[in-house]
């Protein structure tokens, strides 16, 4: 039986992956993971069994929500890179597409989609992380997928030709 610390440690690579996809910025993502770990280690006494992994995803998801909320109250700092980066060819072009598509999602939908397709959580686990019924998770997933499809089919060419 792995100790609490070992279970936390084993989850760090997956947390980094989830955070990277959530924030699409490696520094911000690792800040988020670091804060998640600090929080988890300090709150070990609050952890009453169950899956450590799901609990860590819950903490990270909530910290990211706080981050986005406080950002929303501030003027937007628009990324210059958006228009200045050269158009890429090959797999990187697809990367940018999916990054941008994810960026257009409503937060709860993005969380649900990434937890399912990237992190491999079950609907039940995602429901636990998000604190909602499974039906809500399913409708978030459906909306996320419809939005991404819509974005990839419609939004992309216009965006990519700005330059």
């Amino acid at each position, binding site marked *: 039986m792995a100790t609490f610390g070992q279970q936390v440690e084993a989850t760090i690579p997956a947390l980094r992956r989830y955070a990277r996809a959530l924030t699409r*910025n490696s520094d911000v993502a690792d800040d988020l993971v670091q804060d998640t770990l600090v929080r988890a280690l300090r709150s070990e006494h609050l952890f009453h069994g169950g899956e450590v992994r799901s609990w860590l995803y819950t903490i990270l998801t909530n910290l990211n929500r706080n981050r986005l909320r406080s950002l929303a109250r501030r003027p937007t700092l628009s990324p210059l890179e958006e228009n200045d980066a050269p158009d890429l060819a090959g797999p990187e072009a697809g990367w940018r597409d999916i990054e941008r598509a994810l960026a257009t999602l409503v937060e709860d939908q993005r969380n649900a989609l990434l937890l399912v397709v990237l992190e491999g959580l079950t609907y039940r686990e995602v429901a636990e992380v998000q604190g909602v019924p499974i039906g809500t998770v399913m409708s978030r997933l459906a909306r996320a997928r419809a939005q991404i499809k819509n974005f990839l089919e419609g939004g992309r060419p216009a965006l990519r030709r700005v330059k």
Partner: protein
Amino acid sequence: MIDRDSPVTEEELHAYVDGELPADRRDAIAAWLIGHPEQAFQVAAWRAQAEAIRARYGAVANEPVPGRLKLDRLTQQGGASSGRSWKTLAAAAAVIAFLAGGSAGWMARGATVAAPTSFEAITADALDAYRLYVVEVRHPVEVPGNERVHMTQWLTKRLGYEQRIPDLQPIGLKLVGGRLLPGPTGAAAAFYMYEGASGERFTIYSAPATSPETALRYKAGDRLAAFYWVDDKHAYVVSGPADRDQLEKVAKSVYEQVDKSGARKS
């Protein structure tokens, strides 16, 4: 046995893609899709999305974990709930370099793809204030350092939490004074300036934070650097010339004096 022809809902198609269905129903739907190309196309598109997401981010989990996320570094500061010591905080401090050309502003101002954390926004405000006021010869502060008691009362009232203006005389820094600044989310921020014997200036920026606490972080550019952290829902940014050792000494002294819980416990 589940009826092959029972209606297939869109919800069920999502569950099919995500491996949430029992085997018999999964097989039934696979067969059903053969006769329903439109839905089959839909399913294929969802799978392609998932694959694109995994192709883009999946490899992150194979990257080596950066030192600051190593558990043994974090356990000392995190495991014990009895206040954080500067030493363990500093050991875990992330070092993130400024982009070249500090005069263009904080890196978040347009240089990175994603928006900064709120915490970084506070730090950006603090560094803007540092740049703006540290060069002032005649009016660097609103309240001079010899009115410490008055300034403490005034800024405590305006910020809504007790101000402890650190005494940095022991490390050779005299309090020049302080001022009130606009803080994040409409709140107020306090800004204190100190000066060393050869005119070098350090500032402390303090404002309410959204997160209860964070790890210690360090950012450095060509000319200036900052240590910043959140403790007990208050953010602190200690800025000064880009000399990590000296700045760390200042930040450590500030940390130990403003950390109320730590002070009580030690």
